[in-house]
């Protein structure tokens, strides 16, 4: 198991280096001239040259890359925004909690829906519950999250007035005049985004869990457990669930990593200042350091969650530890 962990850790580090390299190449080497972009409207050759020196764009590419990595690893610096000069790191520090709040809350919501629905549908195929679940699944898969978000905003937020229609409140208390904060306000502002995120994914996960539980129920070792005289609950919890969660864990890990890179549609629809909204703005203004910062964060979160999935997987399935 320890050997497995070491192997996986090295693999994750390698992936991280590879990701920085690719990101760097795509955003700093291929586009026309970052210095001109950074100069903005005041482009005189002198200013552009000055900026080129400051950004070390006059150095060979491998040195630029090395500096980029050095600043990142040694100082935790992603550089400064071309648009407003703020450090990218502080932008990320403001935006990551917003995106993470949406994602983790949404994931908890959809798992809370999908796990029971999936299991019940699998145990009672063709029952009313199963059929209603399938209708919900079909709806969830067909409805784009933008549409779901807008409909919820209009109906629940605007028409019924039950929830705020936009904005974000931080989890910690906020004593500024007009500011909002605290756990309750935080959840109150995020409930619609969570539901929006949950509708589509709950559908997918319900299907996935249903299929996996049904498959596991027909395994020979489940029949063995029943022949031993195990009760239904024991068969389900001890023999079926762990085996049928393997695939769910894999996909959940991948989803979490990807979502943390920014839930663009949801952040736009609900005017939430997260990574997704920021990367859209940065794209429009070609604010390269910000784009790189967010992309790298997304890469790191994908790598991290893949690593966690590998570890969890090895814990769930002993065959993998030795493989």
């Amino acid at each position, binding site marked *: 198991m320890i050997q497995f962990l070491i192997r996986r850790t090295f693999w994750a580090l390698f992936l991280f280096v590879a990701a920085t390299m690719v990101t760097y190449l795509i955003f700093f080497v291929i586009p026309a001239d970052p210095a001109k972009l950074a100069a903005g409207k005041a482009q005189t050759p002198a200013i552009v040259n000055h900026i080129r020196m400051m950004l070390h764009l006059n150095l060979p590419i491998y040195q630029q890359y090395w500096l980029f990595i050095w600043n990142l690893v040694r100082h935790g610096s992603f550089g400064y925004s071309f648009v407003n000069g703020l450090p990218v790191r502080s932008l990320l520090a403001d935006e990551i909690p917003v995106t993470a709040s949406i994602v983790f809350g949404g994931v908890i919501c959809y798992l809370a829906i999908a796990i029971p629905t999936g299991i019940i549908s699998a145990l009672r195929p063709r029952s009313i519950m199963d059929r209603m679940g399938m209708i919900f699944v079909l709806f969830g898969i067909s409805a784009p999250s933008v549409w779901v978000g807008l409909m919820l905003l209009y109906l629940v937020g605007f028409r019924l007035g039950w929830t705020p229609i936009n904005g974000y409140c931080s989890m910690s208390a906020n004593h500024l005049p007009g500011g909002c904060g605290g756990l309750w306000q935080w959840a109150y502002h995020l409930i619609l985004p969570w539901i929006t995120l949950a509708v589509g994914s709950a559908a997918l996960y319900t299907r996935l869990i249903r299929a996996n539980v049904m498959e596991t129920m027909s*395994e*020979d*070792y489940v*029949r*063995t*457990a*029943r*022949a*031993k*005289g*195990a*009760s*239904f609950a*024991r068969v389900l919890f*001890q*023999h079926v669930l*762990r*085996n049928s969660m393997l695939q769910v864990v894999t996909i959940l890990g991948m989803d979490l990593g990807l979502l943390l890179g920014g839930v663009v549609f949801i952040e736009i629809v609900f005017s939430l200042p997260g990574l997704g909204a920021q990367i859209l703005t940065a794209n429009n203004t070609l604010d390269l350091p910000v784009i790189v910062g967010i992309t790298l964060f997304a890469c790191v979160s994908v790598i991290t969650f893949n690593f966690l999935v590998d570890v969890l997987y090895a814990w*769930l*399935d*002993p*065959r993998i530890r030795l493989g």
Partner: protein
Amino acid sequence: MPLLEVQDLQTRFKTDDGVVKAVSGVSFELDRGKTLGVVGESGSGKSVTFLTVMGLLDPRHAEMTGSVRFDGQEILGLSTARLRDIRGKRIGMIFQDPMTSLNPVKRIGWQLEEAVLIHNDVPRSEARRRALEVLEEVEIPKAGTRIDDYAHQFSGGMRQRVMIAMALINQPEVLIADEPTTALDVTTQAQILRLMKKLQDEYGMAIVMITHDLGVVAEVADDVIVMYGGRIVESSKVDDLFVKPEMPYTWGLLGSLPRVDVDVERLEQIPGQPPSLLRPPQGCAFNPRCAYTFDRCREELPELRPAEGKTDHFFRCHLDEGDRARIWAEKQAAMAASAESAA
């Protein structure tokens, strides 16, 4: 009183294509400490018969009628809760494929302990002691260290030993073995059969040996039933079946049995496929594949009737005694001749 008494058992599956008559009117008895061999091809209903006996079929899909009496108590249609007290405690069961019959994510020891803990109110340490004991009993080398291994760390034969250990851990009165040696290589098969024999002598349990291999039956069984198309087509003492089988299907099975003592040029095979249980043939289910079919076979299902002068040998066939005696004599002569020419 027989330990297990099955009467007129019927199992049907409702499918989208129609009703599958998997088991039709099966009756037999099993006495304490005896071994019953159940022989037949895939799809003959032998496994389904015993899954029905164990109550392991889903009543939403399977319709089961008839009677299954275990130790004098009717257990067919018993509630799952009551049935659970019998399953794994008084009737143990092992399955064909030891590769897939053990849970891959739980340690062997855990799975054995579970079997103890389900039925006995004992601490886990006691269950573990019992698990270790039974692993030694089924001759697993270094049982003390292997108890914490996972199924994938065992070979096929060792896994089947673990399965046997798990079925026997509560010292059941009946062990139902569904093709326990089919997935194993020949030397391992022999070891497993010998082990089962040994354990039967020690524990005194009755065994139901479900197999498609008459060789296995000859080795271990006292009585044998031959199944075809969901019905019993012949039943007798095991010796009698090999001396004078009465039914063309059994002749075919015996002809297709490889023997070490006689060298045969080529094994006989039964032509055709097992019957569809969805749309079984009219009359005798074996008639499309039988070399001796005549008009009556296609119209009328033969009754299970006693063989000439015997009370413990039954068969289903319309051929009269004279014909059957003649054909069997010819078959034996042909087998002997083929053996000679090969020698």
